[in-house]
């Protein structure tokens, strides 16, 4: 399949951008949501996946649900052939809970606010919904693009089925039993992880990577959580300014003195600055919080790779011991030799690809951070300058009046 860069939908440019332009191969049509603003709990996110190559006849598009993306991801993880690669992290589950709560509160509070306030808040909520929605879609896209960019994974059969098969993949979500199995697998893994991590690696490169990744992953996790909290406060402050603007407007319309014009002007100002503040919070979310969240998942995937290599190493060492024992007893030597060879090959194969993967990971990470930090700074500057201009012009008018 020849995949190429495709034009983005409006607004999706704002999405997280963790790959360079050349890596992008797949794009999304603007997806549709079923029952977006209903208060009932079920909300299905369906996405239209399409490839847009140069030759039209190879273009195809299908509808996929979130669970199907997870199925694809899990199929990579469970595939032994891919043990030596960093599996692109699965996209996060679409989470509209917070917005749904707000919608509910809005409905409940309808009686206590003016019509203008209600309409305004409803519009904001819709905008928020749309923003989360676009972000979720973008996350799913990033996942697929990472797969498409990977020289080996892009050839995976399941990936092709995912992109081409027109019908529902009939992939049911994991049932309770399977989820429980997963849980125990993870528990065992972490216990193992400690074991494996304890064994000092002969190879300096991997030893360094192990130390680095363990620390890095924890710190990214912390930074991600803290950045989320910071941005939430920012949003709350913007909401307060919104309320202040509304009340000032009312004061302006009611006041019998010269202050009425004053209040109206300041109310107008705060309306505008509030929008900018909300934009600042949104941009910080996209460029900083999402970046950190993504690299939290990627660093976990890298850790998983190291774990798999560690397991292979342990298997290899065990096979060596078994071989020695077999030779000593002179029993089942051939079998032990074969097993040892297989383990050796497996380990070396993983080590080789893992090394490249980890180097690529670093390159990707540095590029992504650079891009996003630069964009973050540029956006912060743009917004601060915008704010400043609004403030200056308002002050000019107000001072001129007195």
């Amino acid at each position, binding site marked *: 399949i020849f995949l190429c860069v495709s034009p983005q939908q409006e607004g999706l440019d704002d999405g997280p951008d963790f790959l360079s332009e050349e890596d992008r191969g797949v794009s999304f049509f603007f997806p549709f949501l079923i029952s977006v603003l209903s208060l009932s709990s079920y909300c299905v996110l369906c996405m239209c996946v399409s490839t847009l190559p140069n030759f039209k006849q190879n273009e195809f598009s299908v509808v996929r649900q979130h669970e199907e993306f997870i199925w694809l991801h899990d199929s990579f993880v469970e595939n032994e052939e891919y043990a030596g690669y960093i599996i692109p992290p699965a996209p996060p589950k679409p989470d509209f809970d917070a917005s749904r709560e707000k919608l509910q509160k809005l409905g409940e509070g309808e009686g206590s606010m003016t019509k203008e306030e209600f309409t305004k808040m409803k519009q904001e909520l819709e905008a928020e919904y749309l923003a989360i929605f676009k972000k979720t879609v973008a996350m799913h896209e990033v996942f697929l693009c990472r797969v498409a960019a990977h020289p080996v994974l892009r050839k995976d059969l399941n990936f092709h089925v995912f992109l081409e098969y027109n019908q529902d993949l009939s992939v049911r979500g994991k049932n309770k039993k399977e989820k429980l199995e997963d849980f125990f697998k993870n528990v065992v893994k972490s216990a193992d992880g400690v074991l494996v991590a304890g064994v000092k690696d002969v190879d300096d490169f991997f030893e*360094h990577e192990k130390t*680095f990744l363990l*620390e*890095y992953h924890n*710190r*990214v996790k*912390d*930074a991600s959580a*803290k*950045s989320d*909290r*910071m941005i*939430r*406060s*920012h949003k*709350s*402050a913007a909401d*307060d*300014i919104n*309320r*202040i603007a509304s*009340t*000032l407007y*009312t*004061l302006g319309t*009611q*006041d*019998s*003195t*010269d*202050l009425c014009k*004053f209040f109206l002007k*300041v109310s107008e*100002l705060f309306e505008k*600055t509030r929008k900018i503040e909300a934009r600042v919070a949104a941009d910080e979310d996209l460029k900083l919080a999402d970046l950190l969240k993504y690299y939290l998942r990627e660093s976990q995937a890298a850790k998983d790779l190291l774990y798999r290599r560690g397991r292979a190493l342990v298997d290899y060492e065990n096979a060596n011991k078994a071989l020695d024992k077999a030779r000593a007893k002179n029993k089942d030597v051939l079998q032990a030799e074969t097993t040892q060879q297989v383990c050796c090959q497996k380990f070396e194969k993983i080590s080789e690809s893992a090394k490249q993967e980890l180097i690529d990971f*670093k390159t990707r*990470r*540095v590029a992504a*951070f*650079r891009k996003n*930090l*630069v964009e*973050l*700074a*540029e956006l*912060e*500057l743009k917004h*601060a*300058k915008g*704010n*400043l201009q609004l*403030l*200056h012009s*308002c*002050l000019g008018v*107000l*001072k001129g009046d*007195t």
Partner: protein
Amino acid sequence: EDISSSSNGPKAEPMLLDHDPDDLFAEATEEVSLDSPERQMILSDGPSPAITPVTINPRADVFDRSPDQDEDEEENRDTFDIQISVSDPEKVGDGMNAYMAYKVTTKTSLSIFSRDEVCVKRRFSDFLGLHSKLASKYMHIGYIVPPAPEKSIVGQRLGRRSSAVTELDPDAKACLCCRYLLRTVKQPALLKDPDVLQFLESSELPRAVSTQALSGAGILRMVNKAADAVNKMTIKMNESDAWFEEKQQQFENLDVQLRKLHASVESLVFHRKELSVNTASFAKSAAMLGNSEDHTALSRALSQLAEVEEKIDQLHQDQACADFYLISELLGDYVRLITAVKGVFDQRMKTWAKCQDAQVMLQRKREAEAKLQHANKPDKLQQAKDEIREWEGKVQQGERDFEQISKNIRREVGRFEKDRVKDFRVVIIKYLESLVHTQQQLIKYWEAFLPEAKAIA
């Protein structure tokens, strides 16, 4: 400096108003109704502003970090030449009898003061005592007496339903007391009041005992407050003057909106403080991340990011301070002031009621006299005629009082509105300037960071 504090100086207050000579009722029949505790945020231990000499601009200058604050003072000195500052809270005594004493400094060139500069020590209850005296002397003739500073606030913790009473910290109290005094001396009638002069000048002041909550006077106050509430419900006044009706409605609306605004601003202060804390926390986290990042240039950039965020957290802190000390306190003051204004309108109603009662009494006495005429009891008749004369006098006095209070209120409201316009204008402009400063700093920080981010190779 970045803080441009070119505020307008207040216009000169006419020193001599040709108002009627104080026509005081000798007996103060009503105690002052203290304001009901309103919803206010619990003041956290934010950075306290240094209370430096404040001009007649009724806001204590907030930017204690700026070194050129004294220059502001020079600019703002105006022809209504009096400067008051309340500062240096210090603990006096110990144990049960310990209290906070504040230094009250008055600088003036007005002739009614005996000296150019006076420094006295006052404790909080002295302020309450002063207010109590002024209120009892002036409220019932229609003067808007600035409400007493509050010792503590009954606040509703944002997000929780419980209220808690917290003592204000000494510096915030000093600020509050300062604004109280400034508002008081701004009123020409109050400035000349001997109690005010004594408060500002004399080194010793008799303890204001009646302000103690559990004292007899305190209980009497509470009882009167309850009685007032009942009276208010039963007085149905025939309002002949549309101006009063209109004004009362306006103040009612203003009250509602100001309270709403105050609540929103308090919420903003809270969230900005929270933002500051969270930004600081993120800065530390980013620094840690930068430390563990093994790509050198990226590591350095992340450290720079951490530094930027740390500076920004300080910026948020300062802005929250401005939010609070400029806007939130202004709104709080005005919410309390409007309660005082409404109190004055109530006084007018009471005066009217008193007048009505007197008329009713007079009518009764006249009827009694008429009856006695027929009954032919000469000595009682004389008494009745005396009583009639007495009550005629009272009715006349009542009508005069009513006219006087109506006239006073019109003038006071006019003055109040003028001050309100000035106050809000000045404060809001100052606040916007603080916002300008914040944005300018933000630009500076991010402009410094951008090349660092671009340098990641």
